[in-house]
């Protein structure tokens, strides 16, 4: 019997720490978060260490990523949105980094835990709400009142409020469920390879078919890892843009 495909998502404490009755152990998840943040920071610091007019390969990669995120923010939220560039840049590269590091065999996918994605989403939504109230004051509540005939408003206002309230859930669940589904699928197919390979005879030779499928699905997962980070970042941009401009843009 192949191993449980859900086993890869288990959180194991590496250094048990108890603080005031709470379990704040340093787990394998914390370790991979440190690795992701460390690797990304190291890359960006080293790549821009010796800046030159004609960029080196690493420096041009950093410049490309800067322009990519800046362009995305400029397109969705306009000039004003560029104030939030460091925030969106950090979120995009943290999510993309954890997705890509999770694809290394034997590693742990940080973003496959709803605790992580929901914490990220909570920060984004709180930023949106606080920005909106600082910029517009109480007029921020006009976000819930679309331009429509008065008679339609009793129907539309509750809908807008519901749509705003489900945003944190949909944003966090989308990322978490995508990562969870992809990695579970890979492990289930790996189970096929082991089961067929152990069967002996002609069946062992046939195990090459699911193996080829795993390679193809891994390629798809690399696309999904990037796409989900992109979608996560661009939806944060759109929410920020709504808070900055309300409906008038």
């Amino acid at each position: 019997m192949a191993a449980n495909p859900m086993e890869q998502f288990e959180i194991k404490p590496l250094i048990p720490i108890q603080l005031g009755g709470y379990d704040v152990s340093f787990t394998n998840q914390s370790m991979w978060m440190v690795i992701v943040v460390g690797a990304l920071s190291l890359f960006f610091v080293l790549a821009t260490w010796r800046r030159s007019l004609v960029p080196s390969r690493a420096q041009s990669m950093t410049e490309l990523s800067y322009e990519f995120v800046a362009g995305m923010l400029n397109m969705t939220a306009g000039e004003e949105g560029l104030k939030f560039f460091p925030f969106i840049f950090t979120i995009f590269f943290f999510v993309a980094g954890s997705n890509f590091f999770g694809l290394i065999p034997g590693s742990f996918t940080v973003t496959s835990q709803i605790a992580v994605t929901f914490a990220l989403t909570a920060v984004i939504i709180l930023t949106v709400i606080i920005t909106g109230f600082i910029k517009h004051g109480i007029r921020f509540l006009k976000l819930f009142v679309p331009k429509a005939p008065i008679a339609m408003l009793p129907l539309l206002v509750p809908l807008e409020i519901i749509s705003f309230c489900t945003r944190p859930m949909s944003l966090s669940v989308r990322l978490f469920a995508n990562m969870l589904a992809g990695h579970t699928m890979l492990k289930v197919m790996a189970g096929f390879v082991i089961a067929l390979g152990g069967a002996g005879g002609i069946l062992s030779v046939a195990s090459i078919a699911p193996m080829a499928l795993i390679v193809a699905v891994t390629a798809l997962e690399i696309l999904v890892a990037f796409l989900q980070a992109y979608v996560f970042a661009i939806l944060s941009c759109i929410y920020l843009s709504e808070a900055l401009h309300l409906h008038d843009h």
Partner: protein
Amino acid sequence: MDIQAAKYIGAGLATIAFVGSGVGIGVVFGNYISGALRNPGAAQTQYTNLLLGFALCEAQGLFGLMIALILMFT
């Protein structure tokens, strides 16, 4: 009926959510391609919206998966 059996049936039914997700992704990409063939010049500018629509459709199916997982493991 045994409660565990009912849960497994419910989890199986929850995967029907992927029907909608599949139809949605098909509509998104099909319309993008037919639009892009009519006006190839504008295709690149709508690429972001394509990916956004794809991700939003896919997420709807994954909500069904989440319900299936909740039924299976709680």
